[in-house]
């Protein structure tokens, strides 16, 4: 039992570190984790799921806006990107945030191709992050189920 927990814990630690190293997450995520305590045990999961919902909605909006050939409202796209940037920096989704910055620039310069490219990348990126975080939460759950404590991971 203990070996399982230890293994899971190590796995969790490695996975978390890899997420940081690969640039999916940044310190804000750590901060977020710090905010989670007994009073709000699912705080991170809640915020993250909010974030992904937000992502989905915004990406949908942007896709629609960019789909209108010849009549693209870049302001609309820009404000969505800004929202997305704010959200991603709040949860510490580093890659998404980085993409958003590029996206915003494309938007400002009304670079249609750039925008479409960025949108695609953001879509991919947030989905992969979602998958990774899903994995991470699954691991957490497993640890909890196995009766272990979720280890503190220092980056």
């Amino acid at each position, binding site marked *: 039992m203990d070996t399982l927990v230890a293994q899971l814990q190590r796995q969790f630690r490695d996975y978390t570190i890899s997420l940081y190293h690969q640039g999916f997450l940044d310190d804000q995520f750590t*901060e977020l984790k710090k905010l989670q305590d007994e009073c709000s045990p699912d705080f991170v999961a809640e*915020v993250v799921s909010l974030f992904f919902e937000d992502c989905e909605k915004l990406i949908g909006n942007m896709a629609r806006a960019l789909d209108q050939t010849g009549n693209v*409202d870049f302001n609309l796209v820009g404000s969505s990107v800004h929202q997305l940037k704010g959200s991603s920096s709040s949860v510490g989704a580093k890659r998404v945030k980085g993409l958003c910055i590029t996206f915003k620039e494309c938007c400002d310069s009304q670079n249609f191709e750039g925008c479409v490219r960025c949108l695609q990348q953001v879509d991919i990126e947030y989905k992969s992050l979602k998958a990774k975080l899903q994995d991470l939460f699954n691991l957490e759950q497993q640890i909890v189920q196995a009766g272990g404590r979720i280890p503190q991971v220092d980056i």
Partner: protein
Amino acid sequence: MFQSFLSQLITDMNWAALNNPNPEEKEPKSSDFYHLGAIDLPEKPRKIDFWRSGLMGFAKMKQQQQQLQHSVAVKMNSSSNEQVGNNKKGSTFIQEHRALLPKGLILWTIFVGFISRGIYQWMDDSSKVRREEVLVSMCDQRARMLQDQFSVSVNHVHALAILVSTFHYHKNPSAIDQGTFADYTARTAFERPLLSGVAYAEKVVNAEREMFESQHNWVIKTMDTGEPSPVRDEYAPVIFSQDSVSYLESLDMMSGEEDRENILRARETGKAVLTSPFRLLASHHLGVVLTFPVYKASLPKNPTVQERIAATAGYLGGAFDVESLVENLLGQLAGNQAIVVHVYDITNASDPLVMYGNQDEEGDTSLYHESKLDFGDPFRKHKMICRYLQKAPIPLNVLTTVPLFFGICFLVGYILYSAGVHIVKVEDDFHEMQELKVRAEAADVAKSQFLATVSHEIRTPMNGILGMLAMLLDTELSSTQRDYAQTAQICGKALIALINEVLDRAKIEAGKLELESVPFDIRSILDDVLSLFSEESRNKRIELAVFVSDKVPEIVKGDSGRFRQIIINLVGNSVKFTEKGHIFVKVHLAEQAKDGAESNGVVSEDMIVASKPSSYNTLSGYEAADGRNSWDSFKHLVSEEELSLLEFDTSSSNVRLMVSIEDTGIGIPLAAQGRVFMPFMQADSSTSRTYGGTGIGLSISKCLVELMRGQISFVSRPRIGSTFWFTAVFDKCEKCSLKKPTVENLPSSFRGMRAIVVDAKPVRAAVTRYHMKRLGINVDVMTSLRTAVSSVTGRNGSSPLPLGTTKLDMILVEKDSWISTEDIDSEIRQMNSRTNGNVHHKTPKLALFATNITNSEFDRAKSAGFADTVIMKPLRASMIGACLQQVLELRKTRQQHPEGSSPATLKSLLTGKKILVVDDNMVNRRVAAGALKKFGAEVVCAESGQVALGLLQIPHSFDACFMDIQMPQMDGFEATRQIRMMEKEAKEKTKLEWHLPILAMTADVIHATYEECLKSGMDGYVSKPFEEENLYKSVAKSFKANPISDLSCSQS
């Protein structure tokens, strides 16, 4: 313009026109460009106007100002044709008519030529008039004289006639015969120099001829042939003749036509008559024959012609040599060379006969004068014509005056011309420069933008670095690690400051820099600076120390950033150029320095050189350039402080500080000392290669010092070192305290402790003592470790003095003193063990000061009992504090670690508070809420400004509001404005003052945003995502500042 631009762009990219409500935002570059240009305008043209109007006095300043503005505006907005036209009008009269300049010069030259000609004419005329006058007077004079001479001669002939009449006819028998006459006339010939000879012819009528001829024994002959005269009515044979004309004897004078007429005329008039001129026989000169009648009896008064003829006895005649006469006459007069004289017989006016003068010798035909001559013969008329021999020469004054006049006028014209050309050129240059200036201004704007962009780009990662460092400092660190991390943080902050300074440099150059006036702690600033350079100085093994006189107030008001910048500059230079020895920063009042200098007298450089001791009483023992920091004067400073600590002059409201930075570096070559404060000047080019740097630091420092109403100067001796010093005036700030506690708040747990500092070098000891004093530790200085040890252990009979009575907490040993004292280790160990054994005495802790320490030395120190308490220099109060805390195990009471304490404080601040979080971003809202909840606050969320307004209808129970700035529909600024308005209305209605602290949440924390926040009524801002420290600061500030919120809290 923008619309057309955009639509152009869009059609280019095959996109339909889009609804851009705010096109300026899309084109920040051009709009900013325009904006900045427009703002800068009104000041700059004035400067140019000044010299421009100086150059051309007639230009109207106001007009030009307008034109300049136009011209700049044209650059900004070149589509406005009207303004281009206005710009053209900026050229002046001269510039507009530049093509006329050469024509003007030519016209002027011609005009001057005419004038010169006129002047010449006038002068020539006047000289001609003068010449004529001269000629007239000369001619008249000659004529008069000739006339006189002639009449004299005639008179003589007259006299001769009377003689003949008297002695030949009135005597009987005649008293005169040929012999007598010849003799007499020969003897009186001097009286008639011009008469070649005289002869007397008697009037013989035909009836008397026989008698006459027989009487004289000769026949009357004719003049032409010498033959006996044919029969005539009357004869006039010569009876008496002068010897020179003896050939005339017996010739009948009436036989010659002319002579006969003469004779007839003479006897009719009774006067001398003249013949027309003819060549005389003897001399071939032109001459006339003068004939004078001799009457027998005395005539009645007014005789008639008949009476005269009847009374005629004979005729006296003489040949008059006119040529000789005139010649003679002219010879007597001055200036006869200059004029040509002609005498004419003009009896027959149509055919004037020359009496005198060479007909070929014309002379100056242009000018002549005629004078009438009267030789006493009314029948004949004569005249004299005078001419100048030479043509009138052009007078010298005319020759000089006219060309001179022409030359001067031409030169004046040329000068005006070239001035005009020059003005045109200057004007052209001016316009060109104006254009360049506009371009330069544009470039300047671009540069500023670039700087702003770059600095912003640098700031972003720097914020990351600083944040990480702050987090690092929150973790458990050893004192060294902590110091490193703190140094890194300070460096990072300095870098941020530097970026601001780069921006400010432009301001300095433009003279727009304004110093701020905030209270600050000089000592902590100096500590910061020291820590910046501590690593470098340690690596170079140079001692870096700071000393602030106790008289310097704790807190002064001034521009701490600038002050710090100056010191960093100077210390940075010192560190750069120093390889051995020390750098010593000393701050004291300027008045103190004066006193010190007075009491010590000025140490002349010669004296220092002459008395070269092996070691100097400076910080490190190396020689320093300025003697003022040596112990002799320093002692004075220190002792004075102790004596007169309270004599501080509190009357004046400001304080003049003197900061000196002494190093023992390479010094500044004498030749380069003059240009040290010039920008971009280093001692020589090799310096910049060896040491790097641009050399702008000192010039900026100089500007800043001058802004602080101070002076900067230095003393430097090559290879010995430099001492820079500057003064600066700060406001006193006795009552004000610093708003925010300094990061390095000194621990107070050392107050009242005692320590012994062992150091052989008094200056260094004083520095150590200064830092210890700041920690509240009383310090005794001992010069040798041995005496210190013995005084502690109470050996050698020396009473342990204060130690016996009060506790001694620590002994701080300078490494040099320890190394130089041999065999002391065992004693120290002994002392340690002894005191350790003594339960009543608290063990004095041992600590070692060192600039650098080798491993072996470190081991030795450990074994000697210094434990791990080697305090690395440069000394800073906070660092000593940190180290001593470690030694004395005072960690529990540490204060400078915010870790643990700050969240606790934040918690205490926020617990139970009801806070409204307004953010349109769901995720952000959740995170913010989570963070605030963690600190115990009760959080209500609102997803837009309108919702927030609804929630905040007065009365409400919120204690604070965190407001996102960028929100759709209603942004944070607008929401805040409305909230404030509501509060105002509520105040008017209910007389209850409401003020909800509103904090902006924003991702970019630039200054402008902050200002905007304040403008719209916010109380502060927190950066997003939340940082503990930042959050704490903002919250603490606004909560403390608003007791009303507490009130409302308690009400709720």
